[in-house]
């Protein structure tokens, strides 16, 4: 996996982890059913491995943190 693709996947994972699972619910009307969310989480499982890939690459770099641009 190249580094751009990894970054994109890590970004998506981070977004997913927030927008689906957290945030204000002011209204009772949520279009997303639990079943949909479970499907999304299947995707997360795959994405988690990309974090590990990202980390393997990073480990060779000097910088200890790697800031992800969260913009799509």
């Amino acid at each position, binding site marked *: 996996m190249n580094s751009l693709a990894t970054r994109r996947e890590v970004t998506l994972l981070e977004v997913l982890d927030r927008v*689906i699972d957290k945030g204000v619910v002011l209204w009772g009307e949520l279009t997303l059913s639990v079943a949909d969310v479970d499907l999304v989480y299947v995707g997360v499982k795959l994405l988690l491995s990309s974090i590990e890939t990202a980390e393997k690459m990073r480990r060779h770099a000097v910088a200890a943190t790697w800031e992800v641009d969260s913009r799509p």
Partner: protein
Amino acid sequence: MIWLYAVTDRPEAEAPRVRGIEDAPLATVCGDGLAAVVSRCLRDVPPTEGNLLRHEAVLEALMADRTVLPVRFGAVASERKRVRQALRERRAWCETNLKRLRGRVELGLRILWGEPEGASAGGACACPTTASGRTYLLARAEEERQEKARREQARDFALWLHGPLERLAAESSYRLLVTPRMLLTGAYLVERDRMPEFRRQVSALGSAHPSLSLLCTGPWPPFSFVSPELQGRTEELVRDARF
């Protein structure tokens, strides 16, 4: 239908020019000193990569010049009137939280460690084919004991790493061992101007512990600090392993 992105504290401010879900223009619905940022949408908006990122992109555009209460993906209202009504009903709650979040952003942190593979591999090999039931049970009990010790060790280590970061944040939350390798998943509510300091601290932890991998992300909209279950508290959420 009306798709909701955020509640903000600036009803007078124009909606940003970025496009929302389904490429629709953004609009604001104002009421009682608050504004909900919305766009029109069809009834079903699937949680595709594009839609999730679009929701996030709108929030990031809003964060540039106002405080936001990010709304969870998937919230829709049938008409504007209902949005205004909800703003009215939740006004006090929204105002309190907007005040709490003003000038602050969420930073994310994931810490990976390399420890667990050895332990689990050893356990798997110990699985006997010819040994007696008693030997098997003893082996299982030993495995369980090791697993428990490992979790305790992980917890102590994670909290030790989390401590100095927590002190730089107004609020924080974390989960331990979401996967065996992911020691800590943290969210930190940090003053915008303290972000560099926070990142330096993460770097310092990385330098001090070369065996760890640290991934610091953000700034994010403060998603992790508006969920009802997390609100205003530092707390540990060891969730059932979904992964």
